[in-house]
């Protein structure tokens, strides 16, 4: 833009407006733009977090508005950390988290690797594979409840067909030993396509010339896989693990639909436990402390993980 144009535009700007804008520094204008966002962030995220921290030191119960609220120091935290039921729910969460991530990464990557091969019907298979993750967790939970039904469930019949066992001799959702695996199977079925899609993006981002160079160097397919494919897909894979890890740490809907936390409490995840404490037992102070502990756990783990992810990216 020539000086003449700038001058023309400056002259065309009404004096009143020009004077107003002139009075604001760049910094002030920047604040003007980001102010509303910061306000919303404070109102929706930061204030509730601070308020929750405050409540976690009290005996407040949201269903007892007439009761005096007392500050009880760290008592809620002490009770939570010494409560064996809380630790059991943490164990259930860890079991679910580890095995769902393990199977989803393994199967998701394998599917992506297969889909990445050019073959007839490739697109159709991709669409079919991603269907489960398009369904609502409530729907998935409901129909897997039927599939797991010992007397009429298809799952039991398929297992019986291969093992020769009586279909009604085992109950996936009612058995203490099987129920934790039943929810792992359903989550894996539903969310493996998500991991597959991310891996597929990673695989397709690898330029062909790298493989061609490897071919020229007479590197074997296995060598290519371990020295080209895996390292280049790893950041994508780690991102998928991060997303799924955070999601599954707060898993609620699917498990409630399938087992309700039972039998007994073997599938009672931390999130289910938290919901019961907060909105069924109405122990608001106690559940606030529990929420803070979970928040710190997820935030801490995610931060460490993101650092590791960044290091992998830098390589």
């Amino acid at each position: 833009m020539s000086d003449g144009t700038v001058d023309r535009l400056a002259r065309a700007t009404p004096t009143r407006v020009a004077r107003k804008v002139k009075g604001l520094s760049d910094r002030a204008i920047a604040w003007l733009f980001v102010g509303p966002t910061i306000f919303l962030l404070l109102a929706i995220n930061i204030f509730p977090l601070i308020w929750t921290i405050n409540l976690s030191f009290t005996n407040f119960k949201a269903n007892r508005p007439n009761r005096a609220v007392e500050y009880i120091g760290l008592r809620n935290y002490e009770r939570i950390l010494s409560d064996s039921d809380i630790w059991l729910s943490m164990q259930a969460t860890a079991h679910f988290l580890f095995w769902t991530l393990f199977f989803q990464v393994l199967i998701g990557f394998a599917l992506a690797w297969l889909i990445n091969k050019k073959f007839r019907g490739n697109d159709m298979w991709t669409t079919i594979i991603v269907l489960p993750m398009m369904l609502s967790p409530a729907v998935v939970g409901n129909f897997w409840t039927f599939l797991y039904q010992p007397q009429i469930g298809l799952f039991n019949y398929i297992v019986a067909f291969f093992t020769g066992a009586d279909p009604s001799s085992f109950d996936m959702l009612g058995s203490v030993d099987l129920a934790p695996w039943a929810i792992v199977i359903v989550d894996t079925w539903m969310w493996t396509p998500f991991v597959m899609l991310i891996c597929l993006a990673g695989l397709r981002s690898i330029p062909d010339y790298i493989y061609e160079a490897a071919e020229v160097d007479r590197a074997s397919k296995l060598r290519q896989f371990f020295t080209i494919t895996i390292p280049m897909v790893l950041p994508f894979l780690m991102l998928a693990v991060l997303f799924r890890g955070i999601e599954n740490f707060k898993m609620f809907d699917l498990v409630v639909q399938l087992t309700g936390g039972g039998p007994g409490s073997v599938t009672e995840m931390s999130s289910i436990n938290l919901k019961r404490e907060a909105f069924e037992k109405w122990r608001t102070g106690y559940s606030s402390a529990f929420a803070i502990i979970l928040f710190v756990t997820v935030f801490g783990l995610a931060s460490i993980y993101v650092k590791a992810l960044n290091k992998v990216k830098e390589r």
Partner: protein
Amino acid sequence: MKNVKLATVGAVSVVAASMASAVQAEDLTLCWAAWDPANALVELSKDFEEQSGHTMNFEFVPWPNFADRMLNELNSGGQLCDLLIGDSQWIGGGAENGHYVKLNDFFDAEGISMDDFAPATVYAYSTWPKGTPNYYALPAMGDANGWFYRKDWFERDDIKAAYKEATGDELGEPQTQKEMLQIAQFFQGREIDGQTVYGAAIFTERGSEGITMGATSALYPWGFKYENTPGSYDMEGAVNSPEAVEALEFYKEFYETATPPGYTNSYMGESLDAFKSGQVAMAMNWFAFFPGLYADPDTGGDKIDFFVNPPQNQAGSTLGGQGISVVSYSDKQDASLEYIKWFANPEVQARWWSMGGYSAHNSVLQGETFKDSAPFAGDFLMAMDDVQDFWQEPAYAELLLAMQKRLHDYVVADTGTAQEALDLLIEDWTEVFEDEGKL
């Protein structure tokens, strides 16, 4: 000027008339659980709409979410419900937290006497503190946990002979809890008309109140008590008495040896499904469902009969049922009270029973024809004579969830012993009462 005056008078009249009609005709919302009696109440309430000019809207929530949904509504001071037919256990919280309108003055003004209702229902559904003449609800729906069975199977000669051969006893309605288990075990896995059938459908649900309502149907007949002395919160030796331990072991044996496979998280709906699909010989459920079961074209009529929860050391049934309350956050309390007044009318109560609702009004229950008015009417009266209810404390939800967990851990997940489950339950409850400042 004259015209101006006329216009003013006219305008004032129009405004006054519209205000009057606004006062007279309200849109009332009644909240309750989604089940058969609720549908009957919709029909019944048409009469109220005609008489009063008010419009009735209904908010029915499926049972598993009913407590969650409604207690959230009350705790947040919501105005969704003008009238609420809330569970008996909510009365303490409803009264102490100011969710329900106290009805004493209204009852006195309108001549509604609590003596006109069955004492057990007034005690359980209306009063807080328990047993005092402080009323927060009108008994709306009497209910208890009862049993029904395949009468056609019980009357078949081949099955009767097989039972006699297997047990040495005659097959008939069980007179004790143990006899009921024996019958259920006899049917468990038996082939009837080419289909494998099972003993009985009982409550094992974990999430809301199911397993507690089921297991207390065994605990009460054995003599289970919540406290050694009512109002003392002295639970040691009552909650975990030898009788209570035996009853809980009995319920676990029932679950393990006489229920269909996969029956690990079952409540009302599953019990009805199991019976209607011809899977089970017997089932427990609330009397509220019995009219619908009797009318069922496949398993009702001649094929079904009913019995009260059998005694063991004593008679005892788990109380269900609800009272109707006016929500204090409603700005239509006058119209809501009108509904209560209408509902308390003996004629309306008689129609309520005839349409499938369980009236708690003495004029209905003590009527000469009541016992013969339905095949389950006599059993209902027997059950209501010996009902026991769960804690009705303001902290009832915490108390209930603790019991749900301990019972499900022991009965379904097979963790620990009955003694341990009940000991742990006392620990949980003690903690709750300590938090409440009652211990």
